[in-house]
């Protein structure tokens, strides 16, 4: 057995152990910490599967922002203790058996995957040249499945509208109730002053590199969101009220520009979301730049939650 196979085996083992820990742990704080670490190791698994783009997304979302989201909820709910009794032993046993069966069925599917795997890689590679991009995943996202990508951004916006709609009537238009540090903390303020310039550079680099190498608007946007949240947690900046004009503008600018470029496809190319052959790459980069900003703002506000207090 060579070392790389041994590494993969160990990685898979640790991953499953962490997942089991996160599911079975008694305290929710432990469970959340384990979930965060789980996201981190999952990113390494994606690297091992040669999917660096996915690894970047998983690090940013699974390890970072999702964890922060759940953490925010957990600290709000800390005051209340659960009242419902756990399911009885027979019910748990039955559920366990069912889940083992599901796992075995999926395992059989994996085992029975065709000997010669079907693949779209050659076609994707062939058509990549026409987009002017160098990253095949970005090519698929912005050319072959452009409609998906557009709708995915719309889903993000819709989720934000849904989250906001949970506000109480009197708080509508106010400021989200992101939990911030209780009192100003000089060390944290220092971190919140030093890290964002680095993070913003990395975010822009991710988006820019995304055209030719792994990366892209989403990964870049997530870093921007994380940096903004850091600044807000350190209380260097207030959380903006949700009816602020610039917030609304930043939220829609990405999808709007992408949609506009898509509509121009009717005029200058042959269909919706088609790019004129010579200008494909600049158009995609413009759309991605706007999307990076919008994604950053949307993600940060999703984490911040529904508005809770009115502006003074």
């Amino acid at each position: 057995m060579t070392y790389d196979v041994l590494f993969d085996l160990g990685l898979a083992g640790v991953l499953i152990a962490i997942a089991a820990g996160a599911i079975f742990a008694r305290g929710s704080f432990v469970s959340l910490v384990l979930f965060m670490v789980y996201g981190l190791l999952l990113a390494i698994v994606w690297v091992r599967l040669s999917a660096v783009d996915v690894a970047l997304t998983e690090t940013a979302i699974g390890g970072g922002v999702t964890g922060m989201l759940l953490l925010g909820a957990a600290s709000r709910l800390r005051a209340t203790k659960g009242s419902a009794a756990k399911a009885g032993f027979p019910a748990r046993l039955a559920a366990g058996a069912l889940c083992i069966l599901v796992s075995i069925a999926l395992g059989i599917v994996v085992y029975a995957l065709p000997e010669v795997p079907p693949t779209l890689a050659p076609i994707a590679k062939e058509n990549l040249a026409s987009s002017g991009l160098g990253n095949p995943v970005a090519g698929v996202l912005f050319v072959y499945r452009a409609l998906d990508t557009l709708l995915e951004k719309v889903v993000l916006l819709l989720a934000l509208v849904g989250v906001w709609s949970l506000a109480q009537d009197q708080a509508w238009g106010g400021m989200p109730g992101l939990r911030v540090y209780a009192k100003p903390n000089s060390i944290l303020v220092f971190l919140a002053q030093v890290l964002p310039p680095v993070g913003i550079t990395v975010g822009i680099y991710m988006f820019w590199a995304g055209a030719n190498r792994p990366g892209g608007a989403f990964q870049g946007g997530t870093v921007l969101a994380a940096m903004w949240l850091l600044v807000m947690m350190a209380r260097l900046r207030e959380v903006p009220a949700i009816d602020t004009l610039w917030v609304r503008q930043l939220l829609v600018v990405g999808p709007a520009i992408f949609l506009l470029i898509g509509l121009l496809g009717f005029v200058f190319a042959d269909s919706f979301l088609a790019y004129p052959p010579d200008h494909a790459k600049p158009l995609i980069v413009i759309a991605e730049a706007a999307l990076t900003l919008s994604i950053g703002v949307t993600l940060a506000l999703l984490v911040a939650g529904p508005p809770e207090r009115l502006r003074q």
Partner: protein
Amino acid sequence: MKFAIDIVTVVMVSSGVVFFMAGTVGLLRFPDTLTRLHALTKVDNLGLGLIVFGLLPQAQGLLGALKLLSIWVLVQLSGAIVSQLIAQATQRSGRQT
């Protein structure tokens, strides 16, 4: 030449890994939060540092080497600050077991 460079890598990375081990053992065996924090800083500074320096000769071009170094500097910086925050949190709670 290639051989000499590889030797450097092997020695540096091995010593970095040893610091990782020391840090982990400290994290598990030391009696309270602050001493565990002390053990952890060795991992951030020396463990990762030695691994980064060991990998420098293997880096592809100047840009790759610069990126390696900047990752280490970033971990240094944020590790130091987060350590401070952890220590503060420990003092605040007044419970160091």
